[in-house]
C-alpha cells in the first residue's frame, strides 16, 4: 500500500517556502523571525525524513508511525512516477541537511537589512524540494522536471544580491550554461524516447525499469549510434550539474561569485542532484545498454579528478580553490558509478560477487556523497564566516587565521584534511570504501585498478594545496593584528554540526552502514 504520507517532508518544505515568501513582506523588519521559521521548517522535514528512514525518534521510541517498510509505502511508480525508497530517502536527507546548514548560517551571513529575504529562504527550500523529487523519480520526464525545478531556483538564488556585480555575472553564466544543459538533457531523453518509446507490451513510457527491460531486447545493431549519442548527451547534461570535466568550466566562476551560503547549497546539494540523476539513469535505466559507456565513465572519472586537483593548485581565491577541489571530489564519486555498472554488466545477472561489488561501490559512493556534503559545506561555511567579518576571499588574508578566529581555522583544518582523506576523519572512510570497490571491480576488468590508483595519487596531490591553506592559517603571522574576531553564532553553529559529522563519521558509519547497504540493495533490486 502506497501512502502519500511519505511526501510529508516535501509538503512541509513547500509549505514553509510559500509561507516564508508571504511572511517575507510582513516580517521585513524582522528577518530573524523569518530565519527561525525556515530553520524550524527544515528541521521538521529532517526529523520526519529520519523517522521514515527508521533512524529517528519514532523508531527509537517504538512508535509505529511508518508501520510497513517504506519501500512499499513509497511506491508511486504508477501514479506519480516516483518511488520513495531507502535510496531516495538517503539522498533526500542529504539535501535537507545541506539546506539546513546553509539556512542556519544565513542569519550571520545575510545582513538584516538586505531585501528579499523571504524569497531567499523560499527559493532555497523550493530548490531542495526539486532535488528531493529528483532523487525519487523513476521516469525520465519526471526526473527532468524535478531537476529543472531545483536548477531554476538556484539560478535565481545566485543572483539574490542584485546589486552585486560578481553575483549577477555568475548568475547569468550559470543560467546560460544551465539552459544549454537542459536542452542537451531533453534532447537525450527525446532520443531515448524515440528509440524505446513503444515497448513490446504496447505502452508508451520512459519508466526507468521498463526502459531497462526494453533496452535489453536490443538485438538491433542500428540503434547503437543514436543510443550512444543519447547516452553522451545525458552524461553531458547531468554532468554539468556535477561539474564533470569537460562540462565543469562554469563551476568555479559560479561558486566564487555566488553569495557563499548559496555556494554551499550548490556545491554540496545541487551537485549531488546530478549524481543521483546519473545513478538513477545509468545504473537502472540504461544499464543494459551494451555499449562501452562504462569505460568512458571511468575515464571521465579519472580526468575529472586530475583536472580538478591540478587546476586547484595555483588558485589564490579560497572559494575558487574549493570549487576546483569539489570538481575533483565529483570525480571520486563517479568511481561508484563506473564500478556499479561494470559489475552488473559484465557478470551474468547477479552472481553473488557482482552484486557484492556493485553494492559495495554504491555504498562507497553514498557515503562519500554524505561526508563530502558535510566537509565541503563546512569549508564554504568557514569562508562565509570569514567573509562576514570582512576578510577577503584570498589566501593572503588567511595568514594567521588561527589566532584571529581559532574555531573557524580549526574547523577549516579538519575539513581540508578530511577532503584530502587523512584518517580518522570522514573523508578517509568514504574514500577507502570507494577505492577498495574499484580494486574489487578489477576482478571484472583489470583496468579498473587504474581508478583506485588514480584516486590515491590524486588525494596525495590534493594535499599539496590543502596543506598550503593550513600553512597560511597556522604558521604564517597575521598581518592585520592578532586580535580575536567575533564570529556570528549561527555560522559557528552550522560549522560545528558539519565538523561533528566529519570527525565522528567513524561512529556514525557504524549505524549508517547497514542502512546504506539496504539502500544500495533496494536500489539495484537484489
Amino acid at each position: 500500500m502506497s501512502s502519500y504520507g511519505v511526501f510529508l517532508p516535501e509538503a512541509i518544505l513547500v509549505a514553509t517556502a510559500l509561507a516564508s515568501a508571504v511572511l517575507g513582506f510582513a516580517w521585513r523588519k524582522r528577518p530573524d523571525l523569518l530565519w527561525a521559521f525556515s530553520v524550524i521548517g527544515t528541521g521538521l522535514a529532517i526529523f520526519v525524513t529520519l523517522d521514515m528512514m527508521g533512524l529517528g525518534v519514532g523508531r527509537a521510541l517504538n512508535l509505529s508511525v511508518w508501520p510497513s517498510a517504506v519501500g512499499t509505502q513509497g511506491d508511486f511508480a504508477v501514479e506519480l512516477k516516483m518511488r520513495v525508497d531507502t535510496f531516495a530517502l538517503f539522498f533526500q536527507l542529504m539535501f535537507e541537511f545541506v539546506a539546513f546548514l546553509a539556512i542556519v548560517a544565513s542569519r550571520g551571513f545575510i545582513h538584516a537589512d538586505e531585501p528579499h529575504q523571504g524569497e531567499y529562504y523560499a527559493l532555497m527550500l523550493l530548490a531542495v524540494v526539486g532535488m528531493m523529487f529528483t532523487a525519487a523519480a523513476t521516469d525520465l520526464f519526471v526526473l527532468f522536471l524535478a531537476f529543472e525545478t531545483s536548477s531554476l531556483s538556484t539560478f535565481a538564488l545566485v543572483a539574490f544580491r542584485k546589486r552585486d556585480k560578481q553575483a549577477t555575472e555568475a548568475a547569468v553564466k550559470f543560467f546560460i550554461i544551465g539552459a544549454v544543459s537542459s536542452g542537451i538533457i531533453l534532447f537525450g531523453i527525446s532520443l531515448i524516447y524515440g528509440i524505446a518509446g513503444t515497448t513490446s507490451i504496447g505502452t508508451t513510457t520512459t519508466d526507468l525499469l521498463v526502459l531497462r527491460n526494453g533496452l535489453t531486447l536490443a538485438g538491433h545493431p542500428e540503434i547503437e549510434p543514436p543510443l550512444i549519442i543519447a547516452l553522451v548527451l545525458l552524461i553531458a547534461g547531468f554532468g554539468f550539474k556535477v561539474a564533470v570535466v569537460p562540462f565543469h568550466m562554469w563551476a568555479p566562476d559560479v561558486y566564487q561569485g555566488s553569495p557563499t551560503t548559496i555556494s554551499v547549497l550548490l556545491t554540496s546539494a545541487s551537485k549531488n542532484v546530478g549524481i543521483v540523476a546519473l545513478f538513477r539513469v545509468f545504473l537502472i535505466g540504461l544499464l543494459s545498454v551494451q555499449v562501452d559507456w562504462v569505460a568512458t565513465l571511468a575515464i571521465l572519472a579519472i580526468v575529472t579528478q586530475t583536472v580538478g586537483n591540478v587546476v586547484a593548485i595555483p588558485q589564490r581565491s579560497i572559494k575558487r580553490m574549493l570549487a576546483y577541489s569539489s570538481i575533483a571530489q565529483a570525480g571520486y564519486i563517479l568511481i561508484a558509478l563506473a564500478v556499479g555498472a561494470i559489475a552488473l554488466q559484465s557478470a551474468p545477472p547477479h552472481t553473488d560477487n557482482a552484486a557484492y561489488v556493485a553494492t559495495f561501490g554504491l555504498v562507497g559512493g553514498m557515503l562519500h556523497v554524505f561526508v563530502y556534503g558535510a566537509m565541503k559545506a563546512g569549508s564554504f561555511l568557514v569562508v562565509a564566516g570569514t567573509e562576514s567579518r570582512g576578510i577577503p576571499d584570498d589566501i593572503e588574508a588567511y595568514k594567521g587565521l588561527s589566532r584571529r578566529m581559532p574555531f573557524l581555522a580549526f574547523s577549516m583544518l579538519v575539513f581540508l584534511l578530511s577532503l584530502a582523506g587523512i584518517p580518522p576523519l570522514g573523508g578517509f572512510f568514504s574514500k577507502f570504501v570507494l577505492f577498495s570497490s574499484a580494486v574489487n571491480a578489477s576482478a571484472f576488468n583489470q583496468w579498473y585498478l587504474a581508478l583506485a590508483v588514480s584516486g590515491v595519487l590524486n588525494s596525495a596531490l590534493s594535499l599539496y594545496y590543502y596543506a598550503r591553506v593550513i600553512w597560511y592559517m597556522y604558521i604564517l603571522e597575521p598581518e592585520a593584528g592578532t586580535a580575536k574576531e567575533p564570529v556570528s553564532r549561527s555560522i559557528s553553529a552550522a560549522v560545528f554540526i558539519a565538523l561533528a559529522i566529519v570527525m565522528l563519521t567513524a561512529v556514525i558509519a557504524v549505524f549508517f552502514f547497514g542502512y546504506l547497504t539496504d539502500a544500495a540493495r533496494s536500489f539495484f533490486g537484489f
Partner: protein
Amino acid sequence: MIAYEWVVWFILLLPLGAFLVIGLVGRRLPEGGGTIAVGAMTGSFVLSMYVFIQVLQQGGLGGGFIPQTIPGYVWIPSLLPETSIKISLLIDNLSSLMLVLVSFLCLLIFVYSLGYMHEEDGKARYYAEVSLFATGMLGTVSADNFLQLLIFWEIMGLCSYLLIGFWYSKPEAAAAAKKAFLVTRVGDVLFLVGVLVIWNVFGTLSFSEIQGKMASLYPNTLTPQLLTLIPLLLFGGAVGKSAQFPLHAWLPDAMEGPTTVSALIHAATMVKAGVYLTARAFIFLVPLSSAIQPPFTAILVIAAIGGFTTLFAATMAVVNFDIKRVLAFSTISQLAYMFLGLGAGAYTMATEVSRGEAVDSAGYSAALYHLFNHAFFKALLFLGAGSVIHAVHTNDMREMGGLSKPLPITSKAMLFGGLALAGILPFSGFFSKGEILSVTFDAGAANPGFYWLWALGVGTAFLTAFYTFRLWFMTFHGEYRGHDHPHESPRVMTAPLIILAGFTLASGLLAYPMGGFGNLIFSGAPAAGLPLVGIPVQDYLLEGVSMGVAVLGLALAWAVYATKRIPAERFTASRGGAFIHRMLTKRYWIDDAYDAFGRTVVYDAARALDWFDRKVIDGIVNGVGRGGVVVAGGSDQFDRRVIDGAVNAVSLETVRTSLRLRQRQTGQVQSYAWVVVLGIVVVIALVFGLSFLQRWLGGLGR
C-alpha cells in the same frame, strides 16, 4: 516505377553540394560561385524533368496516380521498426510537378542573379544561401512525412531570414528579417504542435501510413475533435509561411531583401509552401470514407481566412507607392485565393464524400493550378520590378514613369505579367482564378456562406486589375519623373523575363485543353477507391463575371493613372475617403497594434511587475502603519515623481547593468558553451572509439 530512382536524391543533393562548396570557398570563385549554383540548379531541373516525364508517361496523363517512396535512411531507429523515423522522398503526381516548378524557377532566378547581383559585395554569401534555400524548398515538396517536411520548412525559414537581411548593415533590412523570422515562428510552432499531435494519434508521420490508418482509428483514438484540430494546427503553420491574416505583416517588410530573393522566396516558392502543406493536409480534411465525418469547421476556417485575406491584402496594395510592396500585398492576396480554392474544394468534396457521391477534385486542382500560374507571373513581375529598380535605383513609383521607352523588354514582359495577374483572357491567371471563383460559387450550394466568400473574391478581382495597372501605368506610362538615366538591363536579366513572359501565356493555354490542370494530382482518390470526376468547372457565366470586373478595374486604372481623366485626389477628397486612405496606408494599424502589444503588454508588464514589486508591495507594507495617506491631492505628484521616476530608474539601471555585464563577460559564456559542445563531441568519439577498440581487441584475443 521510376527507373533509377536513386537519382531523385540528387535533386536535393546538387544544390546542397553547391551550398557547401560556395559556403566554403565561394569567395575565391568567379562571380562568388554563382556559376556553380546555376550549374547545380540546372542539374536539379534536368533530373526533376526526368522524374516528371516518367510520372506523366506512366499514368499522370492517362489519369493514373503513381505514389512512390524513394527510400533513404533510418534517422531515429526504434526497437519497433514501424515507429522509427525515416528520411525518404515521396514522388507522386503533386510532388513531381512541384519539383519541376521549383527547380525551374530557381534556375531562372539564379541566372537572373548573375546580372542583378553582379556589382554586390557578399555574392558568395548570397549564392550559398539561395542554394541552401533551393535544397530546403525541394526537400519540402518531396518529403514523405510531416517531420521531414517540417525540417526542410525550417531550413527555408532560416534562409528567408538570412536573405531578407542580406544587406544586414541596413537597419530596416535587419529589422525586417527579424520580423519575418518571429512572425513566421508563431505559425511554425503551431505546425510543430500539429506534428506532435499527429505522432501521438497515429504513431507515424508518413502521409501514406496516416491515410491508411485513418479508418481504423476513427472515432476512438482519432476523435472528431482531433480531426478538426490537426488540420487547423497545420493550417496555422501555413498561415505563417504564406503570410495570411493575421500573420501577414512580415511579407511586405520582407521586400527589404534583394529583389531576386523577393521573386524567388517571397513570391514564387517559399510562400507557396503553406498552400502545399494545406494540400497535403487534405488527407485530414477529406478523409474519403463515408464512415468518417469530415471536419467541416476546419474547412470553413481555411476558406474564410482565405476569402477575407484576399480582399484585405488587395485593398492595401491599392495605396502603396513602393513597387515591390504593391507586389508583396498582391502576393498575399493571390495566396489567399489559393486557400479559398482549397477550402471551397474541400467543402464540396467532403460533402460529396459524406453523401457517398462521386468526388469532384476541382477546387483542389484549381488552387494548385493557380499556385503554378502565380509562381510564373509573380516571379516575372518581381524580376521586372528588379529590372526597373536596377535602371532607376529607387523603389518609389512616384519617381518613375515613362519607362517603356528606355526599358522596352521589361515593360512588355511586365505587361504580360500584369495581364496574367489581373486575370485577362488568354493569360494564365484568367483560367485559374476563374476556376477558383467558380468552385467557390458552386460550394455555395452546400453552404451559403461560400456565396459571400465568392463576392469577396470577385471584389478582389476588380481591385487586382486596378492596382496591377496602377503599377504598370505609374511605372511605364507618361513622363519620367526621376533624375536618373535609365537603360535596359543586360541580356542575362532580360532573357529570364522573356521566358517567363512566354509562360504566362503557355501555362494557361497548355493546361486547359488537357481537361483543366492535373485533376489527378489529388492523392486521395485511388486509396479510397471512389470514382473521381475530373472535369474542371467550365461555367462561362461565372468566369465571364470575374473577367468582367477585372476589365472594369483595368479601365479605372487607365482613367486614373494613364489618361488622368479622373484625378486620384477625388478619392481622398471626402472625409470618409481620406480616412479610408489613411487606414489603408497604415495597413489597418495592425503592424502598429503588434508593436504596441509588444511594447506595452510584454515589455511594460515586465517593468510594471518589477515596479509593483519594488514600490507597491513595499509601499503597502510601509503604509499600513501610517494610514491616511492623502490620495487625492497627491495623485498628480505620484504620477510624475513615483511612476516616471521608477520607470526611468529601472530602465537606466537595466542598461547600466547590461553594459557592465558585457564588458566583463566578453566571450566567456559563449566559450564555456563551446567547450560543452566540444566536450560532447569528444566524449561521443571516446565511446565510439572504445567500443571499436574493444571489439578489435576481442577479435585479437580470440
